[in-house]
């Protein structure tokens, strides 16, 4: 479904991604883990066309994403929940939800996202900046779902969220995946990532250094310690 082959990204003189290889299969849920600054967010930005790659190929459903402008990527079926949620504070909840739809409102889809996040329905006319952190995260995920994505990319969706809401967001991500939508998750909370994603990629210095099943990673504490700095 999504494949990255030898992807390199330079930002100024810095060589951020140094040959990333990664594949997400249809319906799969995969986590991209690593310490701060190893290039996880840049990898996601490269997929979305926001970080121009200097070498390599990114394909989604056999379409080379290099051939389409960045704003067309969501229409190909890739939804993106950016780090920090990326809610437009000056737009209402409804405007935020429909921002990516080129034409009229999609009421059928709205009903679906309100079923996932009923709290948003009560706040339709409110500005994005009046929502709590958890509600903003729900809105960011709901906004993605409005575009009927086949793959949803989430960059630290539980960052800065109340513990009570973390489990709800985790549940919703699992539920979205159960409906057949593939998930690529970047997450600092390793426990959340391993629970949600059967497959895991570990990044170090701009490359993927480990790729395998989550349960296998759990049984290799030395790798977890070396690349994530965690002791089990």
């Amino acid at each position, binding site marked *: 479904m999504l494949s990255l082959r030898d992807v390199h990204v330079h930002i100024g003189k810095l060589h951020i991604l140094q040959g990333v290889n990664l594949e997400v299969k249809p319906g799969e849920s995969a986590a991209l883990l690593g310490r701060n600054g190893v290039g996880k967010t840049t990898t996601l930005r490269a997929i979305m066309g926001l970080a121009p790659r200097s070498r390599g190929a990114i394909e989604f459903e056999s379409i080379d994403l290099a051939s389409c402008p*960045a*704003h067309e990527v969501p229409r190909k079926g890739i939804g993106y929940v950016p780090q920090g949620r990326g809610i437009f504070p000056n737009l209402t909840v409804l405007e935020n939800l429909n921002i990516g739809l*080129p034409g009229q409102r999609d009421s059928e889809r709205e009903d679906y996202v309100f079923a996932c996040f009923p709290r948003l329905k009560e706040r339709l006319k409110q500005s994005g900046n009046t929502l709590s952190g958890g509600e903003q995260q729900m809105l960011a995920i709901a906004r993605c779902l409005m575009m009927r994505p086949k793959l949803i990319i989430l960059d630290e969706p539980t960052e800065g969220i109340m513990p009570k809401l973390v489990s709800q967001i985790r549940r919703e991500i699992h539920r979205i995946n159960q409906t057949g939508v593939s998930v690529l998750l970047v997450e600092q909370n390793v426990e959340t990532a391993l629970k949600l994603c059967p497959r895991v990629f570990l990044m170090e210095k701009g490359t993927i250094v480990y790729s395998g099943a989550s349960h296998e990673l759990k049984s290799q504490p030395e790798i977890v310690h070396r690349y994530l700095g965690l002791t089990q």
Partner: protein
Amino acid sequence: MDTLLLLAMNGLIWGLIIALIALGLSIIFGLLDIINIAHGDFFMVGTVLAWFTLELTGNFWVAFLAVPLIGFILGALIQRAVIQPIHNVAALSIVATFGLSLILQEGVRITFGTTPRRILPPIQSTFHMFGIDYEIYRLFAALVSLLALAGFFIFLHRTKLGTWMRAVRHDRETAIAMGVPAQRVYVLTFGIGFALAALGGVVAAPITTVEFRTGVDILPFCFMAVIIGGLGNLPGTAAAAVLLAFLEGIIQSFADPTVARISSLVLMSAVLLVRPQGLFKGLTK
């Protein structure tokens, strides 16, 4: 007292026209980070095109539709040819738009000539109010400006393009990641900015002189409105333009126009010192 009222009314109406022009300047700055030195010349081009429309068709009213449309197309072309290549770098925009300003002025000077022209108001009648005979066209100009301002804010809050403009203005990258064609939004925004200034030019043409340097005096006034209203604060900019012109109108009833302009500059300096975020920040959004 009659003079005071007359100048206050003139100031108010002029303020509404300036609000239209300053709004164009503000959306261009707010969305594209472009400090548009040529914006006064967009207004000047509007007045000149109004004059040409009248010469060609014999009907001034045609200009109300044709000139903003031409302005929109010119704005979109300028964005693609001049602004897009400099990648919205604010410092470069000053140089690029200064060059554009010279090109527009010289272009008009060559085609239109250097002689200032006057356009007679298409509505000649006056009406008696508070002891003075007041031109009906000026009230019509105020009405057109008010309608255009209202129309612009409705467009901004009720249309998809307006929503996209507000989204791109806040966070371009996230907007793109959500599927917003930011580059197209930039082109359309610059076009709308030019169209608003050109409409201001048509409305103002019968109450000002039409010449290649008409925009030079307008530009500082627009910048003052943008600064006093708060950078990027569109309703604040419109309100500040009306406030400034109204104050200048009143001051002109008992002092020299230069003193009135100095008063505006003093007000702007005071706002920058006391409320650098703008006079209307918090009251409007």
